């Protein structure tokens, strides 16, 4: 075991600011929805809009970061080890078995995480974001007094936005719980705070091909 610097500064900043923005948006959003009363409708709307602009800015920057650093490769989906990973969470972990996927600097996500995070980035966030932008621009006028978003019914916009919000909260609950399934219950959270995580030693030659070989599940290899 050794401490590995796995989450970079921006990555941690992005993660925690996105997390707090999404939670704040959930609180204010569901207040606008009429679920509860905390800030009052008017303030909730104003806060929700401000936070949504911040989140939009953050997302733009983080997309830039993902592409310029090549971190986007972390989310390339794979079916390799997927079943094992699923079985680990459902069965094996109760038996005290080891994680089937080895975490490394270049391979931070297990195949299940890859799938979930990828769909989070490609489906859930865009769905909530686009419906949110449409909500925000609904009945807006441009400088020529032309209504920008009108023909699409607000009811449908609200439906997709609310659905996105509900799924985000479900994601949040499961995601927070899953952080406790690391080496120790707090090791994942610590890693996301400090950037360092205790990982099993990896070969010194951390080239990609070597990595992949190491990553393959022994049982599967035998079958092959």
């Amino acid at each position: 075991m050794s401490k590995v610097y796995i989450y970079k500064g921006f990555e941690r900043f992005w993660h925690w600011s996105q997390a707090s923005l999404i939670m704040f948006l959930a609180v204010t959003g569901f207040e606008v929805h009429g679920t509860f009363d905390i800030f009052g409708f008017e303030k909730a709307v104003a806060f929700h809009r401000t936070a949504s602009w911040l989140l939009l800015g953050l997302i733009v920057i983080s997309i830039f970061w993902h592409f310029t650093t090549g971190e986007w490769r972390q989310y390339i989906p794979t079916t390799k080890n997927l079943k094992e990973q699923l079985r680990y969470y459902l069965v094996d972990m109760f038996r005290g078995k080891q994680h089937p996927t080895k975490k490394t600097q270049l391979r931070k996500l297990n195949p299940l995480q890859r799938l979930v995070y990828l769909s989070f980035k490609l489906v859930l966030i865009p769905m909530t974001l686009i419906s949110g932008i449409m909500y925000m621009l609904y009945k807006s006028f441009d400088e020529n007094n032309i209504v920008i978003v009108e023909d699409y019914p607000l009811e449908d916009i609200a439906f997709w936005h609310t659905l996105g919000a509900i799924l985000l909260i479900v994601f949040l609950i499961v995601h927070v719980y899953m952080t406790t399934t690391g080496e120790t219950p707090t090791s994942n959270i610590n890693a996301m705070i400090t950037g360092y995580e205790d990982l099993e030693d990896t070969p010194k030659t951390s080239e990609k091909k070597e990595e992949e070989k190491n990553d393959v599940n022994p049982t599967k290899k035998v079958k092959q």
Partner: protein
Amino acid sequence: MYKSIIIVIVIIIATLVAVNVSHEDEPANLKLEQLKQKYAFKAVPSVDHHKLDVLHKKFETPQEVTETCLTCHTETHKEVMASSHWNWDRLSYVKGKGVYASGKKNVLNNFCIGANSNEKSCAKCHIGFGMDSNHYDFTNARNVDCMVCHDNSEEYFKGSSMAGYPDRTVNLENVAQSVGLPTRNNCGSCHFFSGGGNNVKHGDLEVAQLSCDREVDVHMATNGMNMECVACHTATNHQIKGKLYSVSTNNINRAKCQDCHTTTPHFNDVLNRHGSKIACQTCHIPEYAKVNSTKMSWNWSDAGKLKDGEPYSIEDSLGNHSYLSIKGSFDWQRNVKPDYVWFNGTAEQYRLGDSITTDVVKMNTLHGSYNDRNSKIIPVKIHRGNQIYDTEYKRIIQPLLYGDKKGDSAYWNDFNWVTAAKKGMEIAGQPYSGKFDFIKTESYWPLNHMVSPKDKALSCVDCHTRTGGRLENLTGFYLPGRDTNKTLDAVGKWLLIFAVFGVVSHAGLRIGQDLKHNRYKKQVIDHNKEEQPDRLDS
């Protein structure tokens, strides 16, 4: 450790400083300042009519005054005689009905029902003299009443049931010399008292507006802008801007808030955006009839009760008639919260002779719906009543109400529906079967006056609330904060419950297994070791 504490403190201080530096007080609304400045100057007439020799004479009849006016204002009578104030009628095109004439001449209402056959009394609010029947000569310029609108002496008033002639006590010479732009008094002499008393019909127009504070009417307040009616209801060639939709049908020449306040009067973009679907009046007239009560219902079917053979009246606690033998029972209300409807600027009215097709007769129908691009939500007073109708021919009856003496069939003298209905329909030239009953009626009065100061305007939660909001009854569209997708909410709730349940049971199983296999214990025991031990069974 100290470093991170310092960083946190620095960030917090920096944030506080940034918030304080970037905070600005609400800037002055220059648009509003400009308007206030513009209307602060009162017009000074360029002619002092006191100084005109031609007006210094003894006028025997009011027509003589008109003739004298026309010696200088030589063509003005043509303008006036083309107006709806003169004709009690206005041509307009109504989709599906073609060109359609509507006005007090042929439209019925659920107050005093209609002018037909009752002209002598109703003409108190006509800008002409001598209208005592429905055979009035609308081409006689001598009968144009210039004074009723232009008298600035506050002396002029029309006599009761005198067919539009001034009261005999009026000093015509004095009035003729003191003419000028119409004041609130002039307009109010009819529009405040329509329906036979102060604030009876409109609910947002009444004598209190001659001298009120900003809470009552922000525009007309004497401690505010103190504006005259004609400031907004401007006129070109005596065609006055603004429409009352109990008699008007089309969407032209309306007086709109936007004419002065523009379509983006707020600093807040979200508020401005509401203007695409919500009229200014909706938020800015939170209640009407703020000083004196207005009539909310009128049941004609209760009329005709007598005590010892004589008509009588009952007053409510505020001094309003709750019952009159000649008119029936009324319900009055003060500080009323408006009803809200969609309105696109066009309307139609129940006209004398129209067939009844619904259980509740709409005396006027305001067109509009959420899906109509031109429609906005507006506040209205809904006046409800019941009135006499022909059960055979399915028509509202125009009864003869006013008469000079007993025995001439007028209801207000004889209290007999049979003869009043027969006579009224006869005069109006309408068929009548002789069989009548009473039917429920409704009329819609858009509210445009008694605008409150902005701090009294409706706030978001007055509408954006799950239950009990102002727009609770206006359904068929999605209103954030009020409407939800019930299915989605239910699915969402169960998804969350399921997620929490899944997480909790998963955690429970893990803890259970760990305890069973003493995994925690082992970790505790091994805490002195340099490295964490491998798991028990790995």
